[in-house]
């Protein structure tokens, strides 16, 4: 028995000189996602994204669960960025529950959030490296990523899914030896970033394949509504951590990198600089954080007020926001998740059309598009 194959899945000639090619859905980068491109020679004349292969109805699922029960399910949507996807959910839930979390919990959320950003960026760098044919830039970041996963494990207990930033604060305090370990790791990794720059980010091959490729001008970046690295690479200094500071980001001393060029190179460089800044933030948190409780008192069946809350944080890929509508019960009435990958997807056809086929992987992955996060 042969399996039915939809006509859209096949490569087909749409005109004498044009060809439509299906990319995906089996992992064009990371995660199941498909897009079709129409090529004329080696120039892309049309690109149509087709997401949804990993849509799991996370928003619907929350309606059957209490706020606390939703946490492990929600973080599956973005496995490289688990702390930052549940943090805005918890913040919105806390607003509806009318509770203020202890200061130490806020610092711990920042530490885990920034550690998560480094983990996500290293994963991104590994894939971008292999897309550009640079095996070392695949091996090194994924090896170093493990050290940060270890750091996360010291606090969160698990390696990937910590369920850490729960409503009411964080699940547990950090161990006493975390600070020494973290500083040791950062001292190592800061040197390592210099190596990365030398072998990858200054590599002539990398420069040739990214500079001037997939340029998104500033005005279009704003009107298309992109966020995160894509927006900052187009010279917009926007970051939720400075735009609407949550936790204690107001007291932190860090830089938000921006670049004028708006090309693939700029989007890659933003990732590199952000890893350094994340370590800078964690160092400050470790120095400044007070002693005290890490969780506010909360019932597992905590009731909320009737109303709605909209919270956002800067996830590893950009602004991550939750809109929760509550009817006053123990379960949310409606949860809407606005994820950076979904918002940045709109830039993909815009950047691919007019590019060469050979530039497609570099452009696609410079958006750091995570299909599972976009589909929810």
């Amino acid at each position, binding site marked *: 028995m042969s399996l039915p194959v*939809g006509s859209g899945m096949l490569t087909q000639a749409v005109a004498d000189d044009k060809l439509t090619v299906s990319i995906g859905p089996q992992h064009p980068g990371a995660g199941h996602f498909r897009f079709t491109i129409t090529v004329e020679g080696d120039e892309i004349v049309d690109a149509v994204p087709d*997401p*949804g292969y990993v*849509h799991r*109805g996370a*928003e*619907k*699922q929350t309606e*059957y669960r209490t706020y606390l029960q939703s946490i492990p399910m929600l973080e599956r949507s973005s496995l490289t960025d688990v702390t930052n996807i549940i943090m805005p959910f918890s913040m919105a839930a806390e607003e509806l529950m*009318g509770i203020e979390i202890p200061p130490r919990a806020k610092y711990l959320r920042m530490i885990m959030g920034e550690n998560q950003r480094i983990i996500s960026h290293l994963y991104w760098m590994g894939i971008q490296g292999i897309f550009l044919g640079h095996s070392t830039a695949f091996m090194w970041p994924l090896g170093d990523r493990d050290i940060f996963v270890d750091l996360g494990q010291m606090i969160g207990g698990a390696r990937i899914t910590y369920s850490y930033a729960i409503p009411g604060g964080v699940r547990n305090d950090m161990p006493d030896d975390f600070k020494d370990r973290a500083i040791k790791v950062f001292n190592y990794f800061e040197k390592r970033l210099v190596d990365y720059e030398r072998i990858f980010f200054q590599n002539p091959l990398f420069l040739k394949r990214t500079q001037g490729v997939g340029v998104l001008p500033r005005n279009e970046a*704003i*009107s*298309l*509504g992109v966020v995160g690295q894509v*927006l900052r690479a187009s010279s*917009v200094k*926007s970051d939720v951590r400075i*735009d*609407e500071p949550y936790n204690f980001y107001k007291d932190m001393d860090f830089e938000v990198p921006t670049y004028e060029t708006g090309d693939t190179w700029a989007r890659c460089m933003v990732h590199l600089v952000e890893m350094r800044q994340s370590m800078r933030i964690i160092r400050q948190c470790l120095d400044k954080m007070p002693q005290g409780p890490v969780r506010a008192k909360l019932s597992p069946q905590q*009731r909320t*007020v*009737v*109303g*709605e809350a*909209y919270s*956002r944080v800067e996830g590893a890929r950009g*602004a991550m*926001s939750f*809109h929760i*509508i509550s009817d*006053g019960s123990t379960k949310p*009435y*409606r949860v*809407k998740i*606005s994820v950076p990958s*979904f*918002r940045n*997807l*709109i830039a993909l056809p815009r950047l691919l059309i007019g590019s060469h086929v050979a530039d497609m992987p570099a452009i696609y992955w410079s958006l750091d598009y995570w299909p599972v996060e976009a*589909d*929810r």
Partner: protein
Amino acid sequence: MSAAPVKVELPAEEKAILDSLTKLGDKAKVVFSKPNRIKISVFADNLVEVAKFVRDELRFDQCANVTGTDFPKEKQLEITFHFNSIDGAGLRRIIVAVACRVPSSAPELPSLIEIFPSVNYHERETTEMLGCIFKGHPNLSRFLLPEDWNDIPPMLKAYRLPGRLESE
């Protein structure tokens, strides 16, 4: 239990937005205003005009999110657009929500894609998840759901997840 009214002094930018909104008269009703968040409700007929006002007068230039919510008792859907600003001075921390109620029997709204190109995929998602048609949108085809989805839009309250009890 309902939200206890807490008196919070609004920052100057929010006050300025509320002042500008009075220019719209009856066309926009302020639902709530608190620091960083303002929600207004409009009728479907006025949505395009209010959206233009939000872009040109209030200087909000991006659509961050579109939420569709089903209210079966009222037989209405509420479609909420969340706008944020990049180039408005001091406005980046503020989210302006524009909510519009439409009847569940024939949910239809004008598309805002001409005013905010960033609503493109958000409107497509809302159409398939709640069945609300955005008139004037160039492409409202399947997006996140499977191509062979053959049921009511899943974010309607009438849709129950398979395997879940009615009481859940």
